[in-house]
């Protein structure tokens, strides 16, 4: 017999994951959109950059709670890159593209 509280938490966490899945996907979509804009224009508006940093921050704070600790680490890295100087962003494009793809896959797998 397992711990009843652990089992109850696990089931409830799965329900909460489903409830907040669209929100997680939306945050990754923000990162993806910023990365696409960066690839197309080699720059981001301040609004795009701060929006991507904010959504990466939110993902970093929550993914590990749902067992996706690697997702938290990746999101933290993305947050740090998006918080950097705007002129350094083009050099991070490849890494940001990779992080965004990994986060998207991780979230789809958890679902």
């Amino acid at each position, binding site marked *: 017999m397992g711990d009843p*509280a*652990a089992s*109850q*938490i696990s089931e*409830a*966490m799965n329900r*909460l994951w489903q*409830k*907040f899945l669209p*929100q997680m996907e939306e945050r990754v979509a923000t990162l993806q959109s910023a990365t696409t804009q960066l690839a197309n224009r080699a720059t981001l508006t301040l609004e795009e950059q701060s929006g991507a940093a904010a959504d990466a*921050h*939110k993902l*970093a*704070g*929550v*993914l*590990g*709670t*749902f067992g996706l*600790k690697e997702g*938290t680490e990746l999101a*933290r890295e993305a947050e740090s890159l998006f918080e950097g100087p705007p002129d350094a962003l083009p050099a991070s494009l490849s890494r940001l593209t990779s992080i965004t793809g990994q986060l998207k896959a991780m979230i789809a797998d958890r679902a």
Partner: protein
Amino acid sequence: MHRILIIDDEDDIREVAALSLETVAGWEVMVASSGAQGLARAATYQPDAILLDVMMPGMDGPATFRELQKNPATAHIPVMLLTAKVQATDRSRFADLGVKAVLVKPFDPMSLSQQVAEILGWN
């Protein structure tokens, strides 16, 4: 039964933290989605402790904490900041505000209540 107020603008974090503290520890949990709402609820409900997110639009965590400290009705309530910032400089800056502790997100839903209880000496 301990009463905890969670102040966080992110609904996923609020719900997971509430689930964790209610289910694992059996505490009574109240929530607020902004600093302003948190100030009002803290004064009204007089929780035993507050979990307060750092980054919120409008009144952020540090500003909310300062307002809690100014009000004699809430100044005595221990506050623990919740943050996804992991840099030592950030954590040190938050700790210098005078909060009881700085907890890093993400947290483990199974051990959050134990962490809080240890900080507050509730064990």
